[in-house]
Structure formats: C-alpha cells, structure tokens
C-alpha cells in the first residue's frame, strides 16, 4: 500500500524533529516536503540534504509545487499568526488536512490517547501544548474513575529547550493548557503552571498532575493511570511514572478554596511524570519537544489508519 505523503511547514526545532521522526518511525506516512520562508535556513538545508522537496516561499510556494496534489497531511510547526494564513489556504482543498502544532487552535484540541475518536474527521486539529500532551492523559485517566473537580499541572522544562516562541508567549501555554485540561481532560476547572529551569546539564522535562476528584477506589485510579501511561508510551517511549501515584484525602472540614469553584473537598491525587525525549533532533532532556512531535505523528498515523 502506498504511504500517505506529508509536508511540514516550519523548519525550526519542532519541524526538524518531526521530519526525523517521520523518516525513522512512520508506518503509513512519507515525508515529502519542507516549507520555510528563509532560503538560508538551516532546517531547509537539512531537509534538502535528506532528499526532500524544499520550498522557501511559504505555503503558497508548496501549492504551486508539483508535489502538492499528492500531499494529504500538512503539519504546521510555525506560529499562531502564520497558522491563520495557512488554514485560509488549506481549507479550500478538501482532500487535505492540517495538524496544528501552534497555539492558534482554530480546530479542536486533540490528544491522541484521549479524544482521537471525537476529532478524527475534523480537517484542522490542534495539538494543545507540550505540557498538555503530557498531562491531559493523566487528568482523563483519573476522570475515567472519579469525577475530577479540579486538574492542575506543573510542567518544568529545561531553559535550553524553550524556544523564542514559547518565551515570548508564555501566557499562551498556561491559558491553552488550562482550557484543554477542562475540555478534553474532563476537569471542571483547570490550571497550568510552567517553570523554566536553567540548570546545566539540562533537566529532563518533568510534569506533575494534581487532581481533586470525588473519593474513589485508589487502586482503580492507579490502574487507570498505568494503563494510560502505557498508551502514551506507545508513541513516546520516554514517558514514565517517576513515582508511585500519591493520594491524600481532603475532608469536608478542610475543604480548599479553588478560584472559580469555591470550597471543594475529596481525593487529591498526585502523579509525578518524567518525559524523556528520543533524542532525535534535540537531546533527550527536551521531552517537551518530543512529546509534541510524537503526538502529531501519532495523530497523523491514526488518521491514515482510519481512512484505510
């Protein structure tokens, strides 16, 4: 069977890492073209050296390229602002879909292990944030067992792995992740915190998930979390539970005051994760980069499998 041809817009860290993953890991996809806007860019040169088509005048350039009609999936690894323009072009080609790795989120959020089935017919899906891809599966895992009132996540990443885009728009991370904790994770209220740690050697990405849920069978929560961890590991091998799941009962008399919810009590669950990257383009500490590109790749693979 022929593999589905794909293109990447944005030859930066994310685009380049995704390209390498497509070359090494893709089952049903074939990397075809890399699109940039700077002919001198290192990422475009690298793509060209690997033998892929390169286009240095943006998505318009790709549309007029001979390979355009064969390309069915486009990964957008640029910026939110650029994504609006890209979708304007792609939406008129009904045979193509776009996987949005920017914070634009024109289409619905998609976390492959959580809500693929709801969104796989949509032609523009958004990959939330790196922290969202890492933590929302855990919020959803708890929510499968007990109603989650509140989901809070803390993502700590190495300073070296935070690119200029992330740094200039840190609110986009906290706001987008918090919204997706609610809309896909299932929490009534979500909160996201991001910390940059400059330690050298760089620290591996860590994610901590706190949920406040109804009281529930703790072993059922543990089982649900473990099963979800395995699901994510199928496309991010370096994703792991760093500690056993921790629990604490918050009795009604010690209810906590959560902004937007008021006083709540129940079961506090703490999940401590470590996300180590595959080391494809950036070193393994950059699990934040890896989980984003891996989730995008897994989503595209699933799209193709669903079509066949």
């Amino acid at each position: 069977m022929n593999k589905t041809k794909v293109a990447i817009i944005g030859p930066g860290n994310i685009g380049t890492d995704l390209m390498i993953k497509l070359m090494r890991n893709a089952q049903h996809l074939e990397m075809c073209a890399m699109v940039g806007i700077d002919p001198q860019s290192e990422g475009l040169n690298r793509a060209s050296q690997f033998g892929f088509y390169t286009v240095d005048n943006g998505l318009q350039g790709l549309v007029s390229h001979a390979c355009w009609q064969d390309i069915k999936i486009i990964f957008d690894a640029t910026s939110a602002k650029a994504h609006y323009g890209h979708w304007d072009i792609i939406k008129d080609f009904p045979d193509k879909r776009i996987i949005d790795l920017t914070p634009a989120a024109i289409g619905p959020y998609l976390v492959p292990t959580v809500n693929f089935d709801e969104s796989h017919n949509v032609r523009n899906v958004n990959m939330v944030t790196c922290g969202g891809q890492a933590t929302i599966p855990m919020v959803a895992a708890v929510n499968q067992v007990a109603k989650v009132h509140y989901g809070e996540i803390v993502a700590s990443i190495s300073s070296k792995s935070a690119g200029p885009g992330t740094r200039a728009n840190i609110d986009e991370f906290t706001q987008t992740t918090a919204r997706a904790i609610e809309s896909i994770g299932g929490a009534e209220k979500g909160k996201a915190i991001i910390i940059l740690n400059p330690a050298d050697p760089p620290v591996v990405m860590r994610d901590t998930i706190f949920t406040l849920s109804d009281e529930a069978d703790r072993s059922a929560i543990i089982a649900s979390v473990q099963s979800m961890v395995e699901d994510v590991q199928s496309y991010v091998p370096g994703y792991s539970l760093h500690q056993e799941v921790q629990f604490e009962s918050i009795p009604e008399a010690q209810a906590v005051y959560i902004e937007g919810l008021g006083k709540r009590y129940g079961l506090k669950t703490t999940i401590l994760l470590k996300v180590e990257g595959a080391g494809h383009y950036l070193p393994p500490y950059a699990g934040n980069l890896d989980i984003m590109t891996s989730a995008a790749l897994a989503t595209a693979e699933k799209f193709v499998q669903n079509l066949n």
Partner: protein
Amino acid sequence: MTENTTSQVYLQDVTLRDGMHPIKHQYSKEQISTIAKTLDKAKVDAIEIAHGDGLTGGSFNYGFGSHSDWEWLEGIAGELSHAVLTTLLIPGIGTIEDLKHAQALGVKSVRIATHSTEADISAQHIESARTLGMDVSGFLMMAHMNSPSELAKQAKLMESYGAHCVYVTDSAGALLMHEVRERILAFKDILKPETQIGIHCHHNLSLGVANTIAAMEEGAYRLDASLAGMGAGAGNCPLEVLVAYLNKYKVAHNADLFALMDIADDIIRPLQTRPVQVDRETLSLGYAGVYSSFLLHSEKAALQYGLDTRTILNELGKRNMVGGQEDMIVDVALDLLKTRN
C-alpha cells in the same frame, strides 16, 4: 511614581504578599484591610498584596489561599492615602489577564518576577503593565544563582521592556553582603541612570537588614521589608528594624517607626503559627540556596514521609531546583525514601 522629594529611599512592604507564606496564604479580608490601612497610616510607600506566589498563585502546588487575589484586593485602593497599592505576578503562573484584573481593582504598581536567568519571559507582561499605565518593576528571583554581570544583563532586558525599576531578589536568603554589593554595582554599571534599583532580601542567614543596607549603600532605592519579617523562610528584612536603622543612619524616609513596631508586635507576630525566625530549617534554606517558600512544603513532606527537613532541602539545593518547583519536594522525598530502603 509619586515620590516624596525629601525621601532617600522607597519602602515597599511585603507583609501581605511574601508574608502569606508563613500562614499558608490564609489572611482574612479583614486582616488584609486592617494591616494595609495601618501601614498606610505609618507612611510606608508601597504595599504589596497577592498570594505569596503572585496573582493566581492559589493552587495545590503552592497552597490555596483563604480568598482569591481579587477578594483580597477589592476595596483596598480606596482606603490608602499615601501608599501605592502593588501586586506581584510570576509569568508561567499568572497572566496578563490577571494583571488587567488587578489593575481594574485599583492596583497601580506591579512586580513581574522571573528566575534570575529567564528575564525574557517577562517582556509581554512588563509591556502590558506599561500600556495599562502602571508603575512596573522587574524582579529577578534567586539572584544568587546568577553571576553579577549576567544578572545585570537580565536586568537590562527588563529595562528594555519598560521596567521602571529592577530588583536583586535574594529569594533563598543565600547572598552574602559582598555578593549583594557586587550585584547592585553591576546593575548600576549598565542600567540607565533613571532606572531605579531595588533589593528584596530573606533573613535565612540573619542578613535581612544588613544586606538591604549594603544594597542601599551601593545605590538601591526601593527597599523591600515586612512587619516582624513576615515572609517565606526566616522571613524578609524586618521593616521596623530597617526603619530604626535608617533613623540612626540619618537616611530620610516617610515611615513612622513606633507605629510599625506596634503593628509588628501587636498584629503580625501573633499570627505566626510557625515562628518566622532563623532556625535549623530556615538556616538550611540560606545555606543550601533553596527558594524560601519551599519551607512549609518541605516540613510537611518530612512529616508525612518520616524524613528530616534539612535533608530534603539540601537535596533540592543539589538538584538546582528553582522557584515554583514545589512539586519536586514530594518527588525528592520519595527518592530519598527509595535510597533509604
């Protein structure tokens, strides 16, 4: 900002922000209002109110407050006649939306806080504060983790985004007196003359007042302090002690020493359920260079997992944990348990 032309320093009180930490962010609205009004009457120049970890810091990671920041701030601006109502925001926790909310409640001044090497994540927030017409400072936390010259470059970035003032923030109370001086001098070397310099100390090595004075002697104009030192770890520079020093040193300021002594002893000290003092645990924060706010969370983890607080704090220091990584306290505790077993 409004400045008394005769005053040689700008005293900012942090009892109602940093001072949230020792009481797990549990001030009642009434306490906030009483303390703010009394501080205003005692002519402190600025009063900072927020969750200890800044706007919307209320969380499992840092502790939920007794109220939201908005509830704490509401109605305070109208009660102040001298002091500037201030707040603090840590990008990555709070957002520009939160800043706008605070401004709408009458907050006139804000500190945008980042780790000492990450100033560039504050650009949008500092610019937004300027657009909102606010007085804005950059607040470079864990200043001991960056060299004087590199820290000054970070300060320069904050100045370039529009900060009126940049602080050397010794969050771990780990800086020695000469290290404070070096950092202030490095700031003075590269910041514009009109950009003010601020100092925020913690008392973990008993240097709260000494370091503040050292900074002032080198050119720091905005001095942070809190009543009875109410703040994370061994607390901040105790305001009433600082004012006594300034009086004896003949440095002009606006504050009323006796009034501050009274609030410190009559109102604040009785609130300190966990004594705010230099002891084995808080000294360990300064000694290991650990974020002072980790104190209560580490004490809780030590109790829960049967470990020694100092051992946890030392390990956090070894791992170069930065401010905000409170989630790593339990992680470290669990790792220590594994090694012990």
